[in-house]
């Protein structure tokens, strides 16, 4: 499939970025017919353990983890090239959930013992934590309210924990008498039960119910917990945006390709001006999105304030969520009837976009948050 993005025309990648991108391109080529994506749909845990191991071997799980904890300590600058490819390849793996969200929360915590003990296992792909923070649909609050911790016992519910079925442990935010704290809880802890919501892309969200569950290690106390959560979530939003960029880019490539081949009225339908202009508008959306992703990762790799990061994360998540939905929906339309079949791959891109766009705050929510932060 031809790369129609402007990357090769106007961007300059570092040698290291090229190397990482090449390995990511080779990696998703294994899933070229999206066989892995299809095989893991609607089947717990919704992703591919073998793929996870391969990603660990490529070192990707340690991108955001400092070397002292077994990671490679690179920035979004390098990571985003992988995320884009994961989006393009619809790779079924809880990469953002584990290697970004959970990793970020752990790295920024102040429990050195936990970090020394657990992070190397995460990097090696042997241990998958997931962040359990959300307490209501549509909420972006990092203040724990509905899950409380009293005498070392957790009670309450967490929602929308992605790929919980494959997680080994959860990092749970809980309200103590002093405020929000973060604890590790093993998946098999007594009193913890999990219900699953099937996602449209074939994966699962977990709903965690805590009934007097004994907490494990403390990841962060009240002094840090909320700011750690906020930073992790914003990093996750940027990562999800980069993945969405990959989703929309490939969806557009597939569509340009298809309309260039598909003949109706004795001409390839991609030669009809109305369809061309439509695809141009989608292309512009994708490149606007790419520009914001590039700007945002630079900001996240730099010294911006927490508030600056929050605004930037909302900016990029709003744009990429909107653009990915618009592009994948239009891609179905441009495919015609075949686009509405499960056999055609293009529908899988729509569904991945629907999941990622609505996770961690959708476009409307992030525009509202941006307005609150900036206006």
């Amino acid at each position, binding site marked *: 499939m031809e790369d129609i993005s402007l990357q090769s025309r106007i961007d300059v990648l570092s040698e290291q970025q090229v190397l990482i991108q090449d390995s990511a391109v080779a990696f998703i080529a294994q899933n070229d017919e999206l066989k892995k994506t299809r095989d893991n749909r609607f089947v717990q845990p919704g992703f591919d353990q073998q793929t996870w191991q391969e990603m660990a071997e490529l070192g990707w799980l340690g991108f955001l983890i400092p070397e002292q904890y077994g990671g490679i300590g690179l920035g979004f600058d390098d990571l985003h090239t992988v995320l884009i490819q994961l989006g393009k390849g619809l790779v079924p793996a809880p990469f953002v959930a584990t290697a970004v969200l959970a990793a970020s929360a752990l790295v920024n915590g102040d429990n050195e013992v936990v970090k020394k003990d657990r992070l190397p296992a995460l990097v090696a792909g042997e241990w998958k934590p997931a962040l359990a923070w959300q307490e209501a*649909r549509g909420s972006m609050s990092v203040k724990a309210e509905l899950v409380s911790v009293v005498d070392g016992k957790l009670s309450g519910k967490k929602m929308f924990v992605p790929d919980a079925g494959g997680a080994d442990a959860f990092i749970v935010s809980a309200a103590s008498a002093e405020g929000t704290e973060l604890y590790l809880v093993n998946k098999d802890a007594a009193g913890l039960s999990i219900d699953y919501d099937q996602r449209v892309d074939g994966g699962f969200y977990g709903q965690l119910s805590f009934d007097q569950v004994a907490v494990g290690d403390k990841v962060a106390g009240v002094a840090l917990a909320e700011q750690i959560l906020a930073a992790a979530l914003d990093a996750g939003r940027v990562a999800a945006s980069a993945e969405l960029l990959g989703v929309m880019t490939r969806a557009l490539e597939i569509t340009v390709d298809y309309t260039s081949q598909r003949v109706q009225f004795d001409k390839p339908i991609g030669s009809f001006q109305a369809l061309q202009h439509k695809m141009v508008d989608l292309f512009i959306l994708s490149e606007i999105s790419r520009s914001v992703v590039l700007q945002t990762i630079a900001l996240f790799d730099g010294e911006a304030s927490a508030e600056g990061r929050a605004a930037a994360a909302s900016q990029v998540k709003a744009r990429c969520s909107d653009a990915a939905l618009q592009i994948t929906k239009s891609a*179905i*339309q441009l495919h015609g009837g075949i686009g509405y079949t499960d056999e055609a791959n293009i529908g899988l891109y729509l569904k991945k976009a629907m999941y990622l766009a609505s996770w961690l705050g959708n476009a409307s929510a992030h525009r509202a948050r941006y307005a609150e932060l900036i206006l």
Partner: protein
Amino acid sequence: MTDEQVVNQYNAMDDDEFRTMVHDFYVENYPDELRFSPHRMHWDEIGDWYLTLSKKGWLTPAWPAEYGGMGLDANKLLIFMDVGESYGVGRTPDMGITMVGPLLIQHGSQEQKDHYLPKILAGEYIWCQGYSEPGSGSDLASLQTSAVREGDHYIVNGHKTWTTLAMDANMIFMLVRTNKDGKKQEGITFLLVPLDTPGITVRPIINLGMHDEFAEVFFDDVKVPVTSVVGGENNGWTIAKALLGHERIFIGSPKFAILAMSRLKSMAKSVGLFDDPLFVERYTRLQLDIEDLFAAYKRFVEVLKRGGNIGAEVSMLKIWNTETQQRVTELMMEAASENGGIQDGIETGDGLVRPAGEVIASRPTTIYGGSNEVQRNILAKAVLRLPS
């Protein structure tokens, strides 16, 4: 009473009285668990209801009474449909009722009428439509499935697709190519074929909503008697276009958009969205898009009530209707936050609402029945008379 007396009875009824009668029948007879089905139902789900309607004599509200129909006038017909939609009555495998019947009444031979119409009314013949092919979607006239005459039969070979509910049907009405020379529209013939004829294979297609609503139908040296032709050899395109007339106002009815809006309203009430001024603004905009469409729809219906014909201009209703419906589902998804990405729905006081499912289910409405791009081409040419 004679058939005509029954007809007179329905059409003479007060509108509200008629509405109540229909509604009461639905309440008593339509299974609760099938109300507002999110997918097109199969025969094993909706077949009993088909037979209930057949028994009641309400299967074919638009057919003339002399052929066993209810013979409703345009006004009563609208009420009849409206009540069904409001109550969430599912669509039956109705191609025999809405398409084959009216077609045969207009273009069929006496033998064809005598043979097919009673079997449709009895629920004995269930039909599917064999028009589209993998290479002929928007450009339907380019179809390639061939029928070669051999004595009293045609030998049919080819491949149809997007055949709705073919797995539930036992009959197919189809377009085949009987002449490869000349204008592509002029070598097409309309055939009626039993699906159990040797050489026919039906393969279900799973759609984006993960339902097997469509199928492919393969024809491998299928022997079809020449008496199966409707309207004469090579006249199939004319026949198919005549059928379009029946379909047009159906496809222009704002029901899809209205139905989606009522689901959005249920969700909004239960989730408390009407307290959010941004939601209210978007909701109102869509509500007005639908109200205004309804005003346009009624203007077209007036034409039917006067006994007039509706032409290409009705495409405007299809475009507005389907695109509004999609916008409604998109607002539903956006307002549902994370639930916009999951299969399951939000429980409301008025049943489950599935935002993601609605977004997906509304995709094909802008594609089928002539994609909205093709509809715009038609309007540009036939109504605005823009140069080509």
